[in-house]
């Protein structure tokens, strides 16, 4: 399955891209599996997807958690804590 990844703010800058398509094994997965796959790339992925960095995930424009399910074609956004208002 493939998902579309979007990055925002400091993650977009440090990862050097605003979006990419990622292939995940199998027909379904959880967000945790996606994060694990990205962490295996090393820095800066490990730095910003570390358990002690408060990154946020949205699946199809809804805030999601590590156990949220993913399916083919989903849009997954990863970003730092929001600072609007």
């Amino acid at each position: 399955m493939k998902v579309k990844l979007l990055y925002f703010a400091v993650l977009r800058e440090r990862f050097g891209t605003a979006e990419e398509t990622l292939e995940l094994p199998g027909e379904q997965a959880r967000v945790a599996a996606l994060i694990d796959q990205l962490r295996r790339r090393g820095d800066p992925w490990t730095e910003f997807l570390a358990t002690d960095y408060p990154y946020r995930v949205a699946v199809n424009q809804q805030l999601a958690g590590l156990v949220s399910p993913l399916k083919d074609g989903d849009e997954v956004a990863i970003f730092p804590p929001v600072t609007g208002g």
Partner: protein
Amino acid sequence: MKIQVQEQDFDVGGELAALAAGAPDAGGIASFLGLVRETSDGSAVAGMTLEHYPAMTRKALEDIVAQAAARWMLRDVVVIHRVGALQPGDRIVLVAVASAHRGEAFAACEFIMDMLKTQAPFWKKERTPAGERWVEARASDDAAARRWR
């Protein structure tokens, strides 16, 4: 309900007047107007850029307003949030709530701002004499949002 995410400035008086005209049975309007600070964490701020997640921003704001409408009897709500390049003193956000009584209007306005600060996908990058920096989320904002749970 009016929810807008836009680069251009907005007219606060005009927005409040339109809200009042559209909710003749309301007893009052509570509003919050957010501005770009001149200093932040001890540094002068020359300006800032507000980034957002266009496909999600409006949905997130609609969800927050729907939560407020489920908690309080609201007549109407306006949320306008700017994105792009902003200068110190510029207006960033307007939240205005029309309701039958002030208690509901004040509470819903504060609720919407607290949730917007912690759930709506906006990010601020400030320009200071030391260079550009991403604004860090504040623990006090998380605490303010948790009060409503």
